[in-house]
């Protein structure tokens, strides 16, 4: 399979990365090179092989349902590029 410029534009949109036409054009052969290379996996017979989900067998733990954290609003906001009145601030979403 190879990707077209239109597909690359769509992937960039899904990934939320703004790209100029020149960048998109440059990426098409780059991505196709990498995809062509990883597609050698098609040679491998994986019939009846389960996809790996945990690399080391491990039980997911449950913890007691109680609050263990919180009361740190200023810490949470300290690195925000824009914060006002104790909230993260983003460009206007609703007109």
């Amino acid at each position, binding site marked *: 399979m190879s990707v077209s410029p239109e597909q*690359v534009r769509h992937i960039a949109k*899904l990934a*939320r990365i703004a790209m100029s036409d020149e960048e998109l054009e440059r990426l098409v052969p780059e991505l196709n090179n*990498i*995809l062509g290379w*990883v597609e050698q996996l098609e040679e491998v017979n994986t019939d009846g092989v389960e*996809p790996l989900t945990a*690399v*080391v067998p491990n039980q997911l733990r449950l913890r007691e349902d109680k609050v263990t954290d919180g009361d740190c609003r200023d810490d949470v906001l300290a*690195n925000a590029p824009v914060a006002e009145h104790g909230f993260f601030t983003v460009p206007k979403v609703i007109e």
Partner: protein
Amino acid sequence: MSDLTSLSIAELREGFRSGEFTAREVAEQYNAAAAAARSLNAYTVETPEDALASAEAADKARGSDALGSLAGIPLGIKDLFATRGVDTTAGSRILKDFKPPYESTVTANLRKAGAGMLGKLNMDEFAMGSSNETSAYGPVISPWRRKDGGNAPLAPGGSSGGSSTAVAAGIAPGATGTDTGGSIRQPAAFTGICGIKPTYGRCSRWGIVSFASSLDQAGPMARTVRDCAILLEAMAGFDPKDSTSLDLPVPNWESGLSSDLKGKRVGIPKEYRIDGVPDDINVLWDRGIELLRDAGADIVEISLPHTKYALPTYYIIAPAEASSNLARYDGVRYGARAESEGGLDAMYAATRAEGFGAEVKRRIMIGTYVLSAGFYDAYFTKAQRVRSLIKRDFEQAFEKCDLILTPTAPSAAFALGDKSADPIAMYLNDVFAVPASLAGLPAMSVPGGLDSDGLPLGLQLIGRELDEQSVLNAGLAIEERAGFDAKPKRWW
């Protein structure tokens, strides 16, 4: 005062405890060495006051029971570890000026053991790279140079290139690294030092900037195998804050060190003899086999039939996980935000376009594609199936052997710029390192010798799940016999 920067961590610990020198003297010498080596671009931030404060606490506590295992030892910390109040950027513009209000579990463990911090170490952006050239701070320069008299700046390996350079150049006695597909072992090999990636789950990932969560593991980089054992003991341990952390006691790896390999079977995987690898690498591998035989090990040939599929498997799984993990960089909660026209979506897209470098974008794009509707099964699920087969290869091999010996990397350090234009050529550098990552196994690189250009080459030991001890022991056996004492000649 003698040169304390030439001592190992074990020697620093001994000298500090016996009163031969103070922790303050150690910190002062390292602070000065780091400041004098800025041309290497190893540190992104220097924190001399942190190293001094920890040293003073160590000097005060000397002789008391309160002395931790790393009291009096200052360390370099890869910039992927969150350090409270100190810039943590993962080598990316998008995390510019990010100062975590919390400390990663691994660095908190090191602090609890008494270690101080010399500074944060440069790295490939989000740990994506094998040469340190993708860093927003510019590449680290290896302290090594080819003996042909040319001064071509060499890659320190990646992604933990700041860590490898700092340890090799004597501007940190040890450093933290992280390894997703070779990022501890390949830079250790390129710079003539030791580095171990433990079993997946040994070191908590909490507070380490995520790249590919099913692969990321922290580990130490240092000048000797013993130093790696000392550091790993302090870094490892169960952490309820990481759901994949292993709830197991931390073994006493240092006191368990023994280079007597009698009765150990070392497997040599025939699939790791690949075309196009310089002769020096295979000569080194053969020498490693002899050294382990001399230490008492039995050598057996083994087969890991899916080896050639490990890299393509990795380059589906790691970008897929990265595209998901890096979705959090949206210019809202932390990091940089770009100026943009339009609404929220335009702000996200502009922020990520400006904040991420070319390699990170490339991997996010690949990852987004292989996870997208219609392609998920063909790429991602397929890769996870092949990953099962790669893991099975190792399980079957470990019925015939206790350890595996391979070269760490298919070449010595290359020059900066040599591979940066060709992503796949760069990826191929991790051909020997990636399989153990996909299988979650402990693996270590130790220096084995120099190539014909006078550059260090590393040997890799891969062990069974949770058997770091055998890996360290075989590493020690090689270290004792290889007689590797080459150091880069100071030019910086």
